[in-house]
């Protein structure tokens, strides 16, 4: 299994509070991604990174920011959590010189905003 660790695995937070989710990899892969999974929508890309300090927006980036200061860590921050951000969040990594393709996913973080 690819070495991807997401933390925390579960979190309940209040509306308006900041939340940071962490993704840590031990594979030294270039590309890292944050997705959210919601019923009826499948997996939607929030942000992705193609190297240290190099990030770009996905299809549902509003309300989220990311940072990648080290190859192994990719942080997802909700600056002010809203109920619409209640979801399961997945980090993914992929090797090689091309974006995505056969990405390896972490186990997910279930976030509930009350």
């Amino acid at each position: 299994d690819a070495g991807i660790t997401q933390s925390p695995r579960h979190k309940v937070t209040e509306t308006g509070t900041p939340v940071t989710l962490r993704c840590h990899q031990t594979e030294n892969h270039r590309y890292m991604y944050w997705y959210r999974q919601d019923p009826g929508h499948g997996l939607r890309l929030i942000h992705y990174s193609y190297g240290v300090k190099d990030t770009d927006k996905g299809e549902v980036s509003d309300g989220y920011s990311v940072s990648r200061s080290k190859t192994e860590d990719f942080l997802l921050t909700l600056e002010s959590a809203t109920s619409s951000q209640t979801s399961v969040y997945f980090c993914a990594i992929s090797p090689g010189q091309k974006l995505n393709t056969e990405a390896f996913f972490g186990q997910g973080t279930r976030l509930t905003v009350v």
Partner: protein
Amino acid sequence: DQQVKQNSPSLSVQEGRISILNCDYTNSMFDYFLWYKKYPAEGPTFLISISSIKDKNEDGRFTVFLNKSAKHLSLHIVPSQPGDSAVYFCAASPGSGSRLTFGEGTQLTVNP
């Protein structure tokens, strides 16, 4: 605008029979397609892929068929096993170096 659609939220089959999961897409720029499998409380895992230069790709019990004119792909699992019970996601991209767009997923249940 759902560019990748899996119209069947669920599918139930008997062990040993064939499972056929379907996926339709609308973006004619998509030319690389993947299937992922997801068990509860786990992340999705890559299953099989196909590029638009092919119409079939096989890996063991899993075969993906691509019909470009119909903008349709399907995943065949033969024979189906209870361990195949999972959610299956179809995904597509305009080239193997581009971002993926996922479908909604289909819950497959294989009954013993």
